[in-house]
């Protein structure tokens, strides 16, 4: 495939950064959620 | 409207006593003009770029002025006094904006004269009205945006750099329009006088928009915490 480098870079940056944000958010949330009682969690 | 004038007068008196504009901001602005010439190192290029450079210098210097407008207030809680009294927030905003406008107009005049002297810019008699109108409108727009965003960052730590980060993108349309209008007034080949007036109209639209926004938002911004 022509220009494969650029195409791969685009997709890797896109999916990679989304994944990073997702993981970071989940980890921070998990840590805080453990410390917070359930009545402060309206989604439960 | 009278309340606004009272607020404006107070701000201008404070400025008069401190002479910040005269002693620090105007020299800084002129210094920026000089530095542009040094960096670009080409008289024809500088002359062609004169209008844009004037308004660039104006943007950066205006932040220093606006910053001051709110630092003075928050240091001794003066805004709270104004607001818990009988002064409507919109009036406080308009008053501060008026004071900023007066100072920015003086600064703009200085810079245009600086461009005439340092860069060799010329203004034909037929372009004078355009130049004055454009300068007035741009100064108005800048004062409305500056006062509004000054209020947003009032009391925050690191508000100097925050003000720049927040306000400068918003002023981009003003920079574009003011530069093109002034370019026309300086007698450019590419921008005729009619276009210059069109750009000035955009400046007025910008100023009106942000004045209205500022008057509306000021009350919310100055609310004390629940």
């Amino acid at each position, binding site marked *: 495939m022509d220009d494969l480098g650029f195409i791969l870079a685009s997709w890797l940056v896109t999916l990679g950064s989304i994944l990073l944000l997702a993981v970071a958010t989940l980890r921070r949330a998990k840590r805080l959620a453990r410390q*917070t009682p359930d009545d402060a969690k309206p989604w439960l | 409207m009278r309340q606004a004038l009272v607020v404006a007068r107070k701000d201008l008196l404070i400025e008069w006593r401190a002479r910040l504009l005269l002693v620090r901001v105007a020299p800084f602005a002129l210094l920026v003009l000089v530095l542009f010439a040094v960096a670009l190192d080409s008289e024809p290029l500088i002359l062609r770029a004169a209008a844009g450079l004037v308004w660039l210098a104006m943007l950066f210097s205006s932040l220093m002025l606006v910053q001051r407008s709110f630092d003075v207030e928050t240091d001794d809680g003066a805004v709270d006094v104004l607001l818990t009294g009988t002064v409507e927030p919109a009036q406080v905003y308009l008053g501060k904006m008026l004071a900023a406008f007066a100072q920015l107009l003086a600064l703009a005049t200085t810079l245009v004269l600086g461009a005439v002297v340092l860069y060799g810019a010329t203004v034909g008699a037929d372009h004078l009205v355009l130049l004055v109108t454009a300068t007035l409108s741009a100064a108005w727009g800048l004062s409305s945006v500056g006062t509004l965003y000054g209020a947003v960052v009032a009391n925050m730590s690191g508000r100097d750099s925050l003000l720049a980060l927040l306000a400068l*993108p918003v002023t981009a349309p003003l920079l574009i329009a003011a530069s093109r209008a002034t370019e026309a007034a300086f007698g450019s080949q590419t*921008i005729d006088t009619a276009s210059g007036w069109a750009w000035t109209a955009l400046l007025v639209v910008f100023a009106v928009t942000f004045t209205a926004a500022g008057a509306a938002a000021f009350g919310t*911004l100055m609310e004390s*915490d629940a």
Partner: protein
Amino acid sequence: MTSTTGSATSAGNTSAGTATTGTLFTRIIGAAAIIITAWVVVSAFFITPADVQQGDSVRIMYAHVPAAWIAYLAFITTAVASGISLVRRHRTLGFDRVAGASAEVGVLFMGLALITGSLWGRLTWGTFWQWDPRLTTTLFLFVTYVGYLAVRSIDTNPQRRARRSAVLALLAVLEIPLVHFSVVLWRSLHQEASVLNPDGDVRLDDVMLFTLFSGVVAFTLIFVWLVMHRQRLAALQDAQLGAGLEAAIAMRRAETVA
């Protein structure tokens, strides 16, 4: 906003809460997002044809266009949530958290739109950047939201943060069209041949169109998933703030009594 129960706020009591911000809804959305994204990637690389003019570089479009769409969706979401947070005073903090979460996710997608657009442009135009209205406006949007997030991160009082951010978000709604309009006028001065719009030049056949559409759907699901988790995280952070404040007040009271 009322505090958490008294027992939870006294120092030293770490009542174990359910350690997740996930619910059935987010799990479904998450699963759907992963599946559809996988399909889009496969299709972008292997199923869709190369473009007649642009060749394979068009495959970047399937990442770029959805990212740009979601960036604007996030912008609108933040603006609407901010507006509501100012009007509905008893729900201010909840909507403010949504606004903030949407902005954070939005900044990510704006950045991605700019990066992928730049890479795509390098292949099609030969340059990484063009001063065309769409790109320039997206850049301004990006910078504006970086500023918005900076302001949010400094305020320690949630009510203050909500008011300040809401005003900023609504001002952005004013600012962005103005910027776009000015840049359109500005660039029209330069009488350039109409700027090559990478996606404007592409002839989309059915598979390409479907893949593009799927991409938008996938990214929308990702957006919703991210915003839901992010705003729940924000709720947890605010609860901690409140608990910390109450603990401090309680300790102070205990000092004066003793």
